[in-house]
């Protein structure tokens, strides 16, 4: 049941795998927006911060 394409999408996809990949790509595009926004706002360098804090310890 879990691996079935929902009715409304059944005409668009030949297999559940196709449907699964489509959903992953769709989700990635939505999530990328949050990361892109972070870059636009000036992404701070995480790795440098980690090194700085570790060297303080």
């Amino acid at each position: 049941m879990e691996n079935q394409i929902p009715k409304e999408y059944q005409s668009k996809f030949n297999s559940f795998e196709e449907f699964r990949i489509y959903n992953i790509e769709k989700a990635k595009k939505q999530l990328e927006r949050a990361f892109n926004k972070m870059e636009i706002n000036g992404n701070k360098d995480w790795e440098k911060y980690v090194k700085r804090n570790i060297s303080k310890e």
Partner: protein
Amino acid sequence: MILMIIKKNMENLDRDLQREKKWILPLLEVVKDKKGLKHTQKYSQIYILNFLIEKRVLSDSRERLIWQLKNNTNYTTNKIMELIDSYFLFKEFLPEFNDILKDINYEKEEDTLPTINIEDIDDVSDEDMEQIIRDLEYATGERDTYE
């Protein structure tokens, strides 16, 4: 009685976590694209934790978060504390998902969450009821400290 209500909360949280599973793989793929494989392997749990907190599946209060992770994962206390410490340390470097939550049907999903039916609760003393309310307030985030 208290256990029954806490169990219901746990079931809700478990269901929420199951529902969010579909976002975890895409999330980690985006992290890998943006930050590289090494970074993803090292910090994947922090990104997942951040996403679940942003989606309000998990609490953003340190105390409640510890409680939720203790009751819903098989992590040791040390592992939980390490993860939570790292999350709060790196919070400013993590993406904010607030703007995209509407697009991913967060509000619609939240509307469908079942609520506790008062008829399921047996007769209890005033003292027990106060304790239940305290537990619920703590579990749902309305109360900051657990007494």
